[in-house]
């Protein structure tokens, strides 16, 4: 399972991005996107913004679950009160030799309730750090986040839950 995580500002401008792989089931936490698929991630994530705009007025939850799918790429979304979107693209690994063992893992079932819950916990933790970021008096809306501490916090959350 490979993940691409992006934070999109209120003007649909990217504020932060991070790529990582699963750490569950003995994963090493390295993203394994094919080289030609990698630059597509940004397009896929941004193209689902239209769907976010539709779904966001449907219910008031921040976690909008899995909102979009492009072939084997699934996009989950969390929207903050300030209309900033957290988008997580998750792409399960093409069926490997040990399918029997990993068939129940969150990696193999991108739409299962377990995966949904794990992503929710990941987003919740990122949200906490996001609120801390914007509470900084030097942070203005739609500013790019470049703090290495924030990056390591996101990485830790990814490692913990996904």
């Amino acid at each position, binding site marked *: 399972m490979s993940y691409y995580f992006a934070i999109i500002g209120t003007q649909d401008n990217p504020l932060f991005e991070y*790529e990582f792989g699963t750490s569950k089931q003995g994963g090493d936490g390295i993203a394994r996107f094919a080289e030609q698929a990698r630059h597509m991630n940004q397009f896929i994530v941004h193209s689902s913004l239209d769907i976010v705009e539709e779904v*966001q*007025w449907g*219910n*008031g*939850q*921040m976690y909008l679950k899995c909102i979009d799918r492009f072939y084997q790429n699934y996009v989950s979304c969390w*929207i*903050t*009160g*300030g*209309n900033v979107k957290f988008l997580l693209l998750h792409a399960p690994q093409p069926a490997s030799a040990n399918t029997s063992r990993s068939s129940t893992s969150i990696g193999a079932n991108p739409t299962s309730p377990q995966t949904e819950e794990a992503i929710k916990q990941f987003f919740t933790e990122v*949200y*906490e*750090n*996001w*609120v*801390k*970021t*914007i*509470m*900084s008096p030097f942070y*203005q*809306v739609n500013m*790019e986040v*470049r*703090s*290495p*501490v*924030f*990056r390591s*916090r996101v990485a830790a959350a990814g490692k913990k839950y996904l």
Partner: protein
Amino acid sequence: MASSQPGKPPLAGQVANGQRPLQPGLRYPSNGKTVYHRPLNRSRTQELSQASFAYLFGEMVSYAQKRVTGIQDLEKRLNAQGHPIGLKLLDLLLYREAPRTQTRPLHIIALLQFITNVLWKHLFSRPADNLEKSSNPETPDEYMISDNEPLVNQYISVPKEMSQLNCAAFVAGIIEGVCDGSGFPARVTAHSVGTGEEGELWPGKTVFLVKFQPEVVEREAYLSKS
């Protein structure tokens, strides 16, 4: 600010191999604690000294007053000072809500109730005194939040020649920030409604007039239909 401007020295931030190296210009606090190490939840009783707030706010007003052309300009500047606070408080207060009620406001009423209850309690330790919709049928996009005794105005005496001024424009800016942030763009202005008569119950009563943009009203009508 400029991460990838050509010709800038590498100090401003290098991007190499998709990984950002630690920037040499970044300084850590001496105790190693950043804004990320501080908890977001504060106990309910933690309050600020009103005297120190009044002192700071007095300085903010006189700072805003420098080189202004008129009262409207001054109120606009106070409004601009409050706006980013509203944007930040919106997410902070939503984060502190209990998980079951942690929902983004989708309707005007939900948003205004969030402002008059949650935001007001956070800022002033009490809910706002009144919330009403404009009774004028020509302005269905206007709502009024009233506060009998705005805390920010407690130690502000407005000179006679500036009687139009209401320094609660700062609070109006905070409200505007909350509205804008949650996707309800609005103009918020503060108005004194005290008549100045002797023996008046609330001489400092202030009304915050919230005027939503037409697209908000349009969306509201569409959402309530479906």
